[in-house]
């Protein structure tokens, strides 16, 4: 369950709870900022970001750290398992398909 901020308002949100973390997701369709439970899975972040940014259901999207784009984050792992700090910057990516 995410608590969405407006893009550009920054990672700090006064009513964000201690058990939440603010995630900033960039993409080719703009930015998505929201607070998630630390126990939320990467897949939850992908789903929320994809929906907000208008990607089609079923698009093969992955999250990477902006600072380490070579390794997609495991969708089954939780945010806290990555020890992310509040305001972590992620990138929503796709590689398409070989056809």
């Amino acid at each position, binding site marked *: 369950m995410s608590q969405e901020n407006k893009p550009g308002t920054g990672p700090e949100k006064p009513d964000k709870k201690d058990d939440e973390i603010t995630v900033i997701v*960039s*993409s*080719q369709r*703009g*930015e998505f900022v929201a607070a998630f439970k630390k126990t939320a899975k990467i897949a939850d972040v992908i789903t929320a970001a994809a929906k907000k940014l208008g*990607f*089609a259901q*079923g*698009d*093969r999207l992955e999250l*990477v750290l*902006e600072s380490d*784009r*070579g*390794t*997609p984050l495991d969708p089954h792992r939780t945010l806290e398992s990555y020890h992310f700090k509040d305001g972590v910057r992620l*990138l929503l*990516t*796709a*590689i*398409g*398909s*070989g*056809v």
Partner: protein
Amino acid sequence: MAVDRQLSRDLVSMEVEAATALASIYHWVVCLDLEALILRVRMTAHNGDRYVVELGLDDYRELPPAIEFIDPATGDVGGTRWFPKGHDSFFNSTGPTICAPVNRNAYKRPNQRYGIHEDWTIGDWANSNVQNFPWADHATISGILSLIQNRLDRPQCYHGKQAS
């Protein structure tokens, strides 16, 4: 039917402007020749290999961009020494070319230097779902460049240049 060049210029200008933030994240060096409708973007792969991607954007968006990798020194196209090698057929050794519906050069057409697919309809490029992938989500300049960069970023997707 050809697209009015000014209309294409307006669309390209808007899309390139919208890609500014993404270009900063990916460290792209962007060079747009709006008059000629040619966009060149320098990208770096995970291992430090450098590429220059050229999008030919005449008749955009009626037709998809014509995507080439070019020799950074001479501007030549079609060389395997400046074309990536990947884990699947996206970076295709035929041509070589990017084999995706978002690339004009992937379609087999009259007077085409190469072109792989006779079975695709070029007019559907922006709504293609071939291989059950929603290409429509990525049928913009920033979307196309991101697909290429994301592959160059990942060791499992990018295996160096086609020829050294």
